């Protein structure tokens, strides 16, 4: 993993999110406060715009700058949560000496744990954690079982989709949707949808690269 890789993924994510923008906006208007899609689009744009500033930096420094940019540039809960994710990833052990898949998975898994602590949300609360936690667990198990990269990535895509769909029947206990109680039932969580799209995009891009 390199900075070039990070930026290329951000650009792919931008395309996918733009395609699904009105769908995500509609989900958020049903159960949130309607600003999620703007936050996500702003955040991705800010990361891409950082390219000239970070392209020659050690990856830990680059991730820290991304974290601060996302934190101040998105604002709200999304800014704090994604800022926490990148800040945690920046602290990954030995990442400046090169990142293989195992290390990349490890810093993502630790990042998800940090986000879980920050947002105090777990699986089953109708948030993006319903996508991120199962994906992190799936990567962890994949490493432990020594499975090949191809099958780990495919499993991660499936877990993300399953997690996203599971939010439909949940009652929210975290985030703005929690203010709706029962009324939020029957709607997919917009944060779960946007994070599932991001994970799918990155995993499928990697699968293409390794010829899976």
């Amino acid at each position, binding site marked *: 993993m390199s900075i070039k890789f990070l930026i290329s993924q951000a650009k792919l994510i931008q395309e996918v999110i733009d395609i699904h923008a009105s769908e995500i906006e509609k989900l958020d208007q049903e159960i949130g406060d309607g600003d999620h899609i703007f936050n996500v689009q702003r955040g991705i744009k800010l990361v891409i715009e950082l390219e000239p500033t970070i392209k020659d930096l050690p990856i830990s420094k680059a991730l820290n700058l991304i974290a601060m940019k996302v*934190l101040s540039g998105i*604002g709200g809960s999304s800014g*704090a949560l994604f800022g926490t994710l990148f800040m945690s990833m920046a602290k990954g052990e030995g990442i400046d000496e090169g990142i293989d898949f195992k290390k990349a998975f490890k810093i993502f898994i630790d990042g998800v744990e940090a986000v879980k602590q920050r947002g105090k949300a777990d699986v089953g609360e109708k948030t993006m954690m319903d996508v991120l936690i199962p994906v992190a667990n799936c990567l962890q198990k994949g490493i432990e079982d020594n499975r090949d990269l191809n099958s780990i990535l495919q499993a991660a895509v499936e877990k993300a989709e399953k997690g996203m769909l599971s939010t439909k029947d949940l009652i929210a206990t975290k985030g703005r949707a929690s203010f709706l109680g029962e009324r939020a039932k029957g709607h997919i969580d917009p944060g779960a949808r946007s994070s599932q799209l991001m994970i799918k995009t990155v995993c499928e891009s990697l699968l293409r690269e390794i010829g899976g």
Partner: protein
Amino acid sequence: MKKFINKTDDFLKESLQGFGAVHREIINVYFEPNFITRSKPTKKGKVALITGGGSGHEPMHGGYVGYGMLDAACPGFVFSAPTPDQMLAAVEKVDGGAGILFLVTNYSGDIMNFQMASEMLQSPNETVLINDDVAVENSSFTTGRRGVAATILIEKIVGSLAESGGSLEACKALGDKVNKYSGSMGVAFSSCTVPAAGKPTFELGADEMEFGVGIHGEPGRRRDKIKPAQQITEELLEAILEDLKLNKNEEVLLFINGLGGTPLTELYLLFDNAKQILDKKNINVSRSLVGNYCTSLEMQGASITLTKLDEDIIRHWDSPVHTAGMRWGM
């Protein structure tokens, strides 16, 4: 969307520029990152009170920066939490060496961002978490209750203690106490429109009201047909009184807060109705406040807040204050 607006991206900046120019004797406005401080530097040895939250609730919070109240406020975008870089920049300007007290309303975005600022900060700091809205039950949702209009009462009362030399611990304790002693609930007759969204946050029929609405247009307990003011007042007070469990002859502050689009004429009518109900219950309304203090853009509607009073709270409520949004005694 009908609003006085040029470009969505300039909305907050232009509004803050106007605010800064009008009230330059009381406050200074800083940009990128955005924050507001008093025009006079914080006294050495004074606890600095810093708050922040999404814009769109004006005069909250910038309007409460000044003598006897806040030292600094960090405005986020409309209905979006401010970010740690704003809080850290504000701290740098107003840290008086006696510690920082963050006053934070109970929304996940606000909490996370203030928490990150607190973690990055070297100076001693404490946080008072405000959650006076009784509409959403604590027991049902772990996110807990929303922080609404009592925020400005807490800013005033704790601001007075900090001004008179109260320690960080004492200020935090008083803030927690006033929060515990306060209960609020609101009702909306119309939605509001966030500039970036461009359309109303929710739909409400011509004869409907949202009972227990939040200050961002979050749904409340239920949607009702519109009723006479007397009946709405009764239902709001019932919910608040059930939460506060007041004793007979207890002294309270009765605060009728407009959400932005309701005229003062109606707010005074609400006060009259509420006062009569409380008189009948032998609850002593000894302090009062009526006006648009904690708004929700152009939303039509109002909230009622009751705060239980004791000698300490009364003294700090009555003390002089000089801010853009609240001024008496000086």
